[in-house]
């Protein structure tokens, strides 16, 4: 049984413009000790999903369906009090920009000890010892417990925040954009820390990011999100070597890579759809160079094309051929876009 099993989760926000369907029927799972990368651009729903998993959504958000099973228990069916037993103890989250939310007027060590005593019920002495151990785990010297946040570098702050998240020994850690704001060398160090933690603590990890290279580096599995849905899922190796969804194919060519020596980057033209009125068919259709008539009418379900690899595309069985022609196909759209906006009614498609 997987450690975490999310099935058909849907979340909506009530806004002045209407109800935004931020997450639309997302299913994914994480094995014990596994690591899942959740990749997508801003607005695709990944942060909302993370918050929904531990039920800390803002007041105007509602979970409208689905189940979140942690070791068999559906977290969505728990009362707030019961849920509190799970937060920090079984699942911990390092939210986006967590390192900026360290209280600047308290020493970092005290902030950790406070958490440990309040949440873990430890005595002051035990909490202190645990704080030191946690700092060691993330590669920070224990003397740093006496320091204030401003004396830490970005990377150190991030590691301190990760240490805090691990305070009560959770089995699952969700990290939302943990390295985005960091310089590349420090980024690498934080990622190394995470990898080490996974090994030492048999920690399961969900890593949320827009940067696919970070996922490639750290995670075994990946789920690609677009417009509130998971459009592709599988092991990192397979998804990156042989993507089956056009969006994933497009992402590969849109990234400048140090090693691939790309002659030309190709953007994915167009914009994600407005989720107040999600489209009837595939949400990626207006931007997809391989769109066919069926894509506008029917939203493709996430189906397995081979063991462990799933994609939500009507043409997934042609993926190999399409993938080879993807750079050229997206480039054609790029040229078209230069002459006028791609309209949602679909001059974006090519047969």
């Amino acid at each position: 049984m997987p450690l975490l099993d999310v099935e058909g989760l849907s979340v909506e926000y009530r806004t002045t413009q209407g109800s935004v369907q931020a997450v639309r029927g997302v299913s994914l799972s994480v094995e014990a000790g596994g690591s899942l990368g959740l990749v997508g651009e801003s607005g695709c729903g990944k942060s909302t999903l993370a918050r929904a998993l531990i039920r800390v959504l803002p007041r105007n958000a509602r979970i409208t369906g689905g189940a979140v099973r942690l070791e068999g228990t559906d977290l969505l069916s728990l009362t707030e009090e019961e849920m509190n037993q799970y937060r920090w103890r079984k699942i911990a989250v390092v939210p986006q920009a967590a390192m900026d939310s360290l209280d600047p007027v308290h020493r970092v060590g005290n902030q950790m000890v406070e958490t440990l005593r309040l949440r873990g019920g430890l005595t002051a002495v035990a909490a202190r010892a645990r704080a030191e151990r946690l700092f060691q785990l993330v590669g920070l010297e224990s003397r740093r417990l006496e320091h204030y946040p401003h004396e830490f570098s970005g990377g150190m702050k991030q590691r301190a925040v990760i240490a805090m998240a691990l305070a009560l020994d959770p089995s699952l850690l969700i990290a939302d954009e943990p390295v985005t704001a960091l310089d590349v060398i420090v980024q690498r160090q934080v990622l190394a820390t995470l990898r080490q933690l996974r090994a030492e603590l048999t920690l399961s990890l969900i890593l949320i990011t827009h940067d696919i290279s970070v996922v490639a580096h750290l995670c075994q599995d990946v789920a690609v999100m677009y417009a509130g849905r998971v459009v592709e899922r599988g092991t990192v190796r397979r998804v990156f070597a042989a993507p089956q969804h056009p969006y994933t194919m497009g992402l590969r060519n849109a990234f400048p890579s140090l090693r691939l020596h790309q002659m030309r980057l190709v953007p994915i033209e167009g914009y994600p759809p407005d989720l107040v009125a999600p489209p009837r068919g595939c949400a990626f259709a207006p931007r997809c160079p391989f769109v066919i008539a069926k894509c506008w009418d029917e939203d493709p379900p996430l189906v397995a094309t081979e063991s462990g690899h799933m994609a939500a595309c009507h043409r997934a069985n042609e993926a190999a051929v399409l993938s080879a022609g993807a750079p050229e196909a997206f480039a054609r759209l790029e040229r078209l876009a230069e002459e006028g906006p791609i309209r949602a009614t679909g001059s974006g498609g090519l047969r």
Partner: protein
Amino acid sequence: MSAPLVEVQNLEKHYPLRAGFLASLAGERRVVHAVNGVSFSLPEGHSLGLAGESGCGKTTTGKLILGLLHPTAGTVRFEGQDVAQLAGAGLLAYRRQAQMVFQNPYEALNPRFTILRSLLEPLLIHKIGRDPVERVGLVADALRQVHLNPPEQFFLKYPHQLSGGQLQRTVIARALLVEPRLLIADEPVSMLDVSVRAGVLNLMREITSERRLTTVYISHDLALLRYMCDETAVMYLGTICEIGPTEEIIDHPHHPYTQALVAAVPDPDPDHMEQLVEIADTVPTPFELPVGCPFQDRCPKVMSICREERPPLLHVGPGHRVACHLYTTDRPHAPAPGLAATGPSGAHP
């Protein structure tokens, strides 16, 4: 050979900090050495990348070139003219020659101005165009150039109604309206979504080649610089530690910092996991600069001379210079691990 368009010599920018009361009594003065001796030249049509992590002085260097800041020492010359000496009409003329693309597209446009109004601003300031009709026409042309079509659709919009990519294109259009010869791009895509970056980068490549613009790209992303720049200078704590053709720097990095930087860039291909070059994680402070090489506290190959003398920038290859004692003339060249040397990779020979 014609003179370079831009020439930077021994540029320095220091910010004095107010020391504590007792410290100032003792005559101590703390100084932030944001830029600490930078030199390079840009021939017309050339593209230079300034690489490095935050705090290395690359943005400050860019602003010094544009004349937005005055150097503490050293000079920036544009067509032979010292930029820091410009004032009045001369400075206004320089503003037509050198422009910038900003890092944050969401803040680079006045939120109370429509797009049309924002783009008219350079025309109005420099009195370009004889009447409103001509000016609006120029704005329309500029929007078309940055692929915001049809331009009229954008005239009456406000910045909050546009996406990040559209905003950045508008910023580029605004910079182009004065027909500059030098364009400095400060992290132009770091705040944009990943699938949008390629479009903006391609646009800049297209425009700079069409207009033979001289460009400086400031970025911490080496992969981006490889895509955009002929030459790259890697900066650390206000100095250039390595400079040369971008391909060369990335494939054969010589300076230990460059090596660490190159090795640290994560790769979208999971089969290529470079060995991390371990460097210490001390917080570099640009104001407690040690004597000698600025990288000494983090360098895995530090030697005693590094703590005494600052290494000069010396050639290690055609157009390729490094500031490191490992390569000073009386020493044999230390082996430089690079991409070409490691395992199975897709690199071309």
